[in-house]
């Protein structure tokens, strides 16, 4: 990720303006806010993570004990497996689905704009409202899904969707897809609009059908967007909390436990703030490492140009 690298022109040390200390004034408001509410808690996390602390008494120094515990905590470890599965799911249900819909709804004919607007609309909904709503949809006894199955004579297929490990995580992924596919659709749609129409015309003249055009023009030209959306999905996935909190809260049998739900449980439900903070430190390291690797990969493939 390149920084504002070219510093010719105005950046290049203008005559008569000294070292540009005054220019710092432009950055200071943002920096203050950022330092107070992002950097400082991040730094203090490092301290608290080395203590045993219930949030009430004084923190007691325990060295690396919290980290030892974290790596022996089977639910904590499993939560990373779950979040990985969830991220893979979001790549399918959010990113890929959004891409397909972007292509399908890419038309100037009347009606398509309305479809795009409707398709995007769940993005505007709050996650908590979405979670509450979908709980009612998936409810075993009275939910919409099972009621529909019964309605079409498939009552035997009715499942306790959110209560069995085999389906609970998938349900969360589906809702996640429902909620966010629209966002990716719009991002891809915008990118599609930037592809010169002449490329498609040239390909059509060469005899390429719609599917071939998609794979040999659309997809390669959207590579950069796909990679950026992928990064959004990955970092967003690790931060995922709202849907899990409102839909399953980690259950059944911790099969939908993700790092954040487990952290909140440990810190606040179980009054172990020190341990919870240690888990946040681990989460931070994991996410940063993955993001950096991802960016390195993306940079190497020359797809992400900043």
């Amino acid at each position, binding site marked *: 990720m390149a920084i504002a690298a070219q510093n010719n022109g*105005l950046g290049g040390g203008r005559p008569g303006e000294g070292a540009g200390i005054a220019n710092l004034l432009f950055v200071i408001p943002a920096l203050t806010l950022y330092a107070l509410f992002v950097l400082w808690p991040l730094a203090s996390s490092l301290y608290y993570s080395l203590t045993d602390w219930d949030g009430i008494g004084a923190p007691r120094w325990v060295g690396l004990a919290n980290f030892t515990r974290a790596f022996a905590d089977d639910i904590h470890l499993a939560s990373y497996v779950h979040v990985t599965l969830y991220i893979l799911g979001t790549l399918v249900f959010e990113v890929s689905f959004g891409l397909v819909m972007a292509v399908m709804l890419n038309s100037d004919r009347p009606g398509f704009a309305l479809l795009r607007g409707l398709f995007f609309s769940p993005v*505007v909904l709050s996650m908590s409202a979405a979670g509450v709503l979908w709980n009612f949809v998936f409810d075993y006894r009275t939910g919409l899904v099972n009621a529909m199955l019964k309605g079409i004579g498939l009552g035997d297929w009715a499942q306790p969707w959110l209560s069995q490990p085999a389906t609970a995580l998938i349900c969360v992924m589906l809702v996640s897809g429902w909620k966010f596919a629209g966002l990716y659709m719009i991002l891809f749609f915008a990118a599609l609009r930037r592809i010169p129409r002449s490329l498609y015309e040239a390909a059509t003249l060469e005899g390429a059908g719609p599917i071939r055009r998609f794979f040999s023009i659309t997809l390669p030209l959207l590579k950069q967007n796909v990679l950026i959306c992928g990064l959004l999905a990955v970092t967003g996935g690790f931060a995922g909390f709202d849907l899990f909190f409102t839909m399953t809260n980690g259950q059944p049998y911790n099969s939908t436990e993700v790092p954040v739900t487990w952290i909140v449980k440990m810190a606040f439900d179980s009054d172990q703030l020190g341990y919870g903070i240690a888990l946040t430190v681990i989460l*931070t390291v994991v996410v940063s490492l993955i993001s950096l690797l991802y960016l390195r990969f993306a940079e190497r493939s020359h797809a992400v140009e900043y």
Partner: protein
Amino acid sequence: MRSNTEAPGTPRDWLQFGLGAVVVAGMCFPALWMIYSSFKTNREIFRTPYALPGTWHWENLTKAWNEGGLGVLYVNSILVTAASVILCAGFATLAAYAFARLEFPGRRVLYRIFLIGLLLPPPAVAIALFTQLRDMGLLNTLWALIFANAAWSLSITLYLMSGYFRTLKREMEEAARLEGADTFRVFWYVILPMVKPAIITTAILNTINIWNELMFALLFISDDASRTLPAGIVRFSGFHSTNYALVFAALTITTVPIMILYFVSQRHVIRGLTAARAD
């Protein structure tokens, strides 16, 4: 742009539209179901889950509004969102300009530090931030959410904005500078009007995010008087989980206005999102 010149209504277009419409209808049904179910009685919802209400019970809405204290939630959400978005947009625009165009000590390092926030998930500091806000005496105040949300939106806003700044031609600023404008006036008279589209874009993205933010709201606010909508809805549905009609009514009240707002300003929202790179 596609198709204005093509003959309308070829079978393939109809197929494309039909498929799209089916998917979109499927996506919208749960929300519609929620809306019309909010006018049913609880019994009706269980007995005939997807039928329309026999009689429309408008009183469900007033009951939910009163019991959920939704008015307060609305006001709080609006205050928090507006203040955070404005704070973030102002600070990030200033900083993005400096990072893209000005020279000052520590520029590269500071920019990288800001970019860290792009990759960090907010839960990474949630607990430490909680204790810090408590020490600052900000817990249970809207300021806790305003500062936290604004700070956590800075990185992405700054990143998008400085990317946008780099697409702007330097000549405008150089011209203004030659005319005698100092750095601040270049920013105010030339830059700010030109980056307005980008500010609107990022503000829209931030509005959606902050309006829906749940975790900070759950952790930092325990007082009814300063709760925001997402946390309020979770709490309300917990209390009344036995009363589907009432929960649906509350969900309808809280989501329908924002949906209407979205559809009214839809062109702008989408144009904003899609203008993220060009012009």
